[in-house]
């Protein structure tokens, strides 16, 4: 079985120097498609984001378990997944005082106004519909985390 973690997190802390944030990010990519997880990771790498820890989960339940063991700076999640959907993941995170602090970006084929409206009410920070341009994903993550454009 393929490892769900491609890299072991190195737990680097955020460093700040002057106005520029030099962050080594811990990212969590949640998608039941292994290809999609790899495409998201590749897109972020292409965009030049410095990734410290890279976590992967196949559904919302795995993501919750992982986030209770390790800190992540941002979650990139699909919606339609077996066992626990991205909507339930966001609902559970919103109800948790600690996890609700973690920004969530939805990366999905879902375009329905009602579901996306519900997710926005729950506090997601961004939404990107598939197919997406790699640079758009990197730019969105930068904007949400307040990073300088490189």
């Amino acid at each position, binding site marked *: 079985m393929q490892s769900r973690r491609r890299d072991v997190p190195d737990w680097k802390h955020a460093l700040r120097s002057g106005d520029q944030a030099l962050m080594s990010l811990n990212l969590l990519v949640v998608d039941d498609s*292994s*290809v*999609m997880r*790899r*495409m998201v990771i*590749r897109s972020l790498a292409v965009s030049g984001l410095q990734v410290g820890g890279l976590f992967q989960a196949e559904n919302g339940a795995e993501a919750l378990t992982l986030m209770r063991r390790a800190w992540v700076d941002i979650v990139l999640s699909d919606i339609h997944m*077996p066992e626990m959907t991205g909507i339930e993941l966001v609902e559970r995170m919103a109800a948790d005082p600690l996890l609700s602090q973690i920004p969530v970006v939805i990366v999905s084929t879902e*375009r*329905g106004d009602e579901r996306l409206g519900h997710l926005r009410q729950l506090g997601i920070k961004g939404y990107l519909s598939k197919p997406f341009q790699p640079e758009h994903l990197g730019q969105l993550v930068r904007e949400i985390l307040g990073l300088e454009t490189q």
Partner: protein
Amino acid sequence: MTDTTNVLRDVAREVLADFAFLLTEPAQAPLAWPAAELVRHAEIDFEGPFCGTLAITATSELAEAIACDMLGLEAGDPEAVAQSASALGELANVVAGAVIARLFGTSSNYKLGLPQVAHGHPRVDVRPREVLALEDMEGRPIEIQLHKPAGAGK
């Protein structure tokens, strides 16, 4: 040619190009398929005001090429073989999402299922369907079927 046919053709070709870097043209002749064990299909159901299924069929070779392009792998990389089913399934997922949004709009509450990938062609289905026959630039066949109630959407 119906509006649905046009939407399916335009959206599918757009997604194949943007998401899988696969340039296609409508086939000018009936698609020629190899033996069933060399063919794969991915199906995904959708539910909402109308229910239906979208299926994509391609040769295993093309599915591997799609995985290579999506993941930035070299041709022949064993990883592409391992990821080809997932790649075809995700392609069906993305095409279905885009087609549904274009046909039915975003105000309707549609829910996509999970893609199922198998060898061979999709099962014979008596529901009304639109069939889109495409070829990539190397002449490799790819077929997209959309099953939905007659008159639903555009």
